């Protein structure tokens, strides 16, 4: 009998918990759909020193967010003043996000970054980082 009472109490308590917490508290993760990418092309380069870095972490467990780090850098080689040629970069991301348990799309995030540099390149560096996580 006491066990039943404990159970009833527990159910009662859990049913009032969302009010205590906040109206925006959800027990499940909302829907999401993320696409993020970066691209670099070199055209007719005569001399250059290039450095690029890519780090990716896909979805993981608690506390560790999904992440991408991308960096590209063009510089002259030792003994020259500039790298000669054309560099193009293209970064983009498209993110859909739901809210709570709703099936509708709640936020749409879109970004694009395109650049082209041509000529005597003394220094050209582009980078982007993307991290994402969920806290419920």
């Amino acid at each position: 009998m006491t066990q039943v009472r404990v159970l009833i109490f527990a159910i009662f308590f859990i049913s009032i918990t969302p009010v205590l917490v906040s109206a925006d508290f959800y027990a499940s993760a909302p829907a999401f759909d993320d696409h993020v990418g970066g691209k670099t092309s070199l055209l007719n380069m005569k001399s250059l020193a290039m450095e690029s870095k890519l780090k990716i972490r896909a979805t993981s467990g608690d506390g560790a967010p999904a992440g991408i780090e991308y960096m590209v850098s063009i510089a002259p080689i030792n003994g020259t003043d500039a790298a000669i040629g054309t560099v193009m970069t293209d970064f983009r991301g498209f993110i859909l996000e739901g809210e709570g348990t709703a099936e509708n799309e709640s936020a749409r995030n879109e970004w694009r970054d395109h650049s082209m540099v041509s000529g005597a390149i003394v220094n050209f560096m582009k980078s982007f980082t993307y991290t994402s996580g969920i806290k419920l």
Partner: protein
Amino acid sequence: MNKKTSALLCMCLFLSFVAVSTADILPNGTNTTNRQIPSETYLEVIGSMSSRQMYQLETSSHGGHEGGFLYDGERVSSVVYKNDMATNGGYLAQSKGLKIDEGPQQKGAFNVDSKIVSTYLTDPEIGSKMASSDSLEMFTSGNFSRVDKNIRNPLVADIIGDYVGGFNSYYKGASAVEMTTGQIATMARARSVGTDNTIPAELRYLIGIHPDMSSGIPYAAGTASTEFAMSNEEGAPANTTEFASTKTMNDKTTVDGQIFTFGKSFMVTSGLSPT
């Protein structure tokens, strides 16, 4: 058994406090992620350059809305930031950063945050020049709802225990520059719908044009124009059909020639305190 009950009570209380302390309030109102997308560019080139940058954020309380009137209590918002620049020769040094941050607003995070500093120099007789344009726009709109005094205001997106009328707000900060020598600095910031009524929608825009000190020319040469605009329509509480107030503001400036110094800034913040 009593011990069990109190242990359970303690556990439930503990869990509820943990949940309170981890609930984040985010600028876009979705309350889910702590997404951060910072990007940076450093550039120094003699030659031509073109770049395009665009960021768009749409939020909607009732899912994607395809035209027509808003539903009862529905609110939508949109932030668009665009930046284009092109040169057809000459010397260009540029530093550009865009920090998209959906982290907690209490830490000052912004949905968009941008900074561009460009220094350009060319021989005007050769015909090369630099052209740049920049714009930041924010639109928020929301409809009145009668249901349980349960309006979600578009500016604060919170459930407020009071009637609030419908809203349409549009803010814009933009500039366009063409120059043969000089330095331009632009800053843009935005923030869309918040989930807490202490955090308003916000827009800032700032532009400054200065001479390039390293070139020895004491002025920046070219044309610059700016446009700042604001319009706000507001309904009276408990009235869906009539405007209670409308406000509009418009500011356009154009300068042309030898620019020794040119600076303009625009900022909008908006909030709501239910009565």
